[in-house]
């Protein structure tokens, strides 16, 4: 491994002086590909922080730094020691030929949690996330959503200080997703810092703060309200796809077309059949991605 220059601070959480986990000005390259370019993200205790972006945006690389499985080329990572963090990789790390209970026993005992405590916590988490009837089933026979819930429970059973979840809800049906979100809220309510990657903005909106990544760069960050308020330019809705160069700055939404104008003066000068739109997070993130695309903006 030739990585060097990155600073990784490993600290323990103590009640009096809670360290804030996160990354500062982190850079990671794989060969010539820049996976993370000067990215900063605080991950406070008792909050859920979302990292959004498409395939290849750098979400997994960032989470791998926070989980301690990857050291950055430069910048600072602040994280608890491995035994005080929980990590759910994009492929879930569950043993298919063990039962649900055996998986949890195995994982938690690896963290030094007693069998008694594992049983008590597991019973509650399984019950509240809708897995109670599955405890004796082989993990390999669970549906995708049930397996993800199991993986999240396995990552939080030792009550870690930091939980890192890489797309826990992708491809998961809404009922399992609500069970997953109950687990996430429960861990945050107990004071754990949670950071998760998602491609869905309605999920990001449920988090305390959001980082928008694209091509390894941070396009926007902060609360959902702040990201929306900071959207550059102006936004209009049109009944049909605009012609000419505006087409590259437009997208379909809810049966109409959104057109982004990098110039805030566009609020006053749009076509007659258009209407000024107050953006939401979905609009603001789409605009951020357009503005960062060569040719997508002016």
């Amino acid at each position, binding site marked *: 491994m030739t990585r060097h220059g990155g600073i990784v601070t490993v600290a323990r959480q103590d009640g009096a002086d809670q360290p804030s986990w996160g990354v500062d000005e982190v850079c990671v390259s794989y060969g010539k590909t820049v996976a993370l370019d000067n990215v900063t993200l605080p991950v406070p205790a008792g909050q859920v922080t979302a990292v959004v972006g*498409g395939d290849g945006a750098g979400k997994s690389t960032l989470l791998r730094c926070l989980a301690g499985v990857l050291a950055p080329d430069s910048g600072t990572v602040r994280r608890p020691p491995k035994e005080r963090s929980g990590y759910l990789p994009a492929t879930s790390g569950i043993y298919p030929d063990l039962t649900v209970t055996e998986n949890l026993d195995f994982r938690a005992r690896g963290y030094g949690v007693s069998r008694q405590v594992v049983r008590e916590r597991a019973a509650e988490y399984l019950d509240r996330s809708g897995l109670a009837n599955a405890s004796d089933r082989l993990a390999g026979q669970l549906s995708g959503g049930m397996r993800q819930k199991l993986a999240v429970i396995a990552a939080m059973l030792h009550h870690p200080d930091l939980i890192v979840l890489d797309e826990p809800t992708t491809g998961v049906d809404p009922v399992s997703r609500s069970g997953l979100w109950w687990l996430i809220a429960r861990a945050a309510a107990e004071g754990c810092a949670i950071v998760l990657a998602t491609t869905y903005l*309605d999920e990001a909106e449920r988090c305390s703060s959001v980082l928008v990544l694209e091509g390894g760069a941070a396009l926007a960050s902060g609360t959902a309200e702040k990201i929306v308020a900071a959207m550059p330019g102006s936004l209009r809705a049109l009944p049909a796809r605009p012609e000419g160069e505006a087409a590259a700055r437009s997208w379909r*939404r809810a*049966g109409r077309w959104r057109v982004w104008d990098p110039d805030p003066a566009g609020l006053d000068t749009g076509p007659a059949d258009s209407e000024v739109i107050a953006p939401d997070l979905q609009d603001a*993130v789409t605009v951020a991605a357009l503005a960062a695309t060569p040719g997508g903006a002016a």
Partner: protein
Amino acid sequence: MSALASCSKVTRRFGQFTAVREVDLQVGPGEIVGLLGANGAGKTTLIRMLLGLLGTTGGEVTLFGEPPSRLTRSRIGYVPQRLGLYDDLTPTENLEFAEAIFGAGGTALPEPVRPYARELVGSLPLGVQRQVAFAQALSHQPDLLMLDEPTSGVGPLGRARLWETIGDAAEAGAGVLVTTHYMEEAQECGRLVIMADGRVVAAGTAAEIVGSRQVVGVEAESWPTAFGALEQAGLQVALAGRGLRVPGADPAQVRRALGDLPAVVRQVPATLEERFFELTKQASPEAAA
């Protein structure tokens, strides 16, 4: 309007288990219909019957006015969840293969795929792979498109571009039936059909389905403390930003559970997702525990 796809009292049993019961569903030309449901709600069984891969136990499926057959299949464009592409062929080769099967020709690669024309599909970003799958499904100009979770794993801008492709096909007159797990995608559909426990439990626009339903919103000084108190009272609580939402409870009940905790409690309009849970729970109480 004559429906492109029509289910009339369609039922499908597997032994003792009824996967789909008495489902009515129509997709007309130019229409985008969203099919929503939890795992096990019967969506996949219904789609397999519409594709002609599975027979019915009762009721009637018609496609373009006739029973599903090899002939009707040739008028359908289908994108399965796993895309159905050959990873070790290029986008161009995948497209040519599909065209050869359907006797079509001359389909241009969509613009976002062009830079990748000579690379193997298996090595491409997911959003680009999905564009290839869409182009393949559309190459024979089908009258009916069936899309299973079409944008899963794709980022916001990529998703907007995929919905553009779907919308263009509908504007050109195709009927579209699309399954999704994500309520923010449901707003792209002109009409929604919600299935639970094999049945259609709601149909209409998102606004019609949600109606005037409300849930209790809680803005507490400390949401974790409020979360704990509401949990303790046995209420169902969901996190939303720094606030909480309590579906299925009334404000007085929530106020009581919070005791002396400083919090603003008020009724707020329910989301489509919250209404979806309510419907799913009513249909099969233990599935939505």
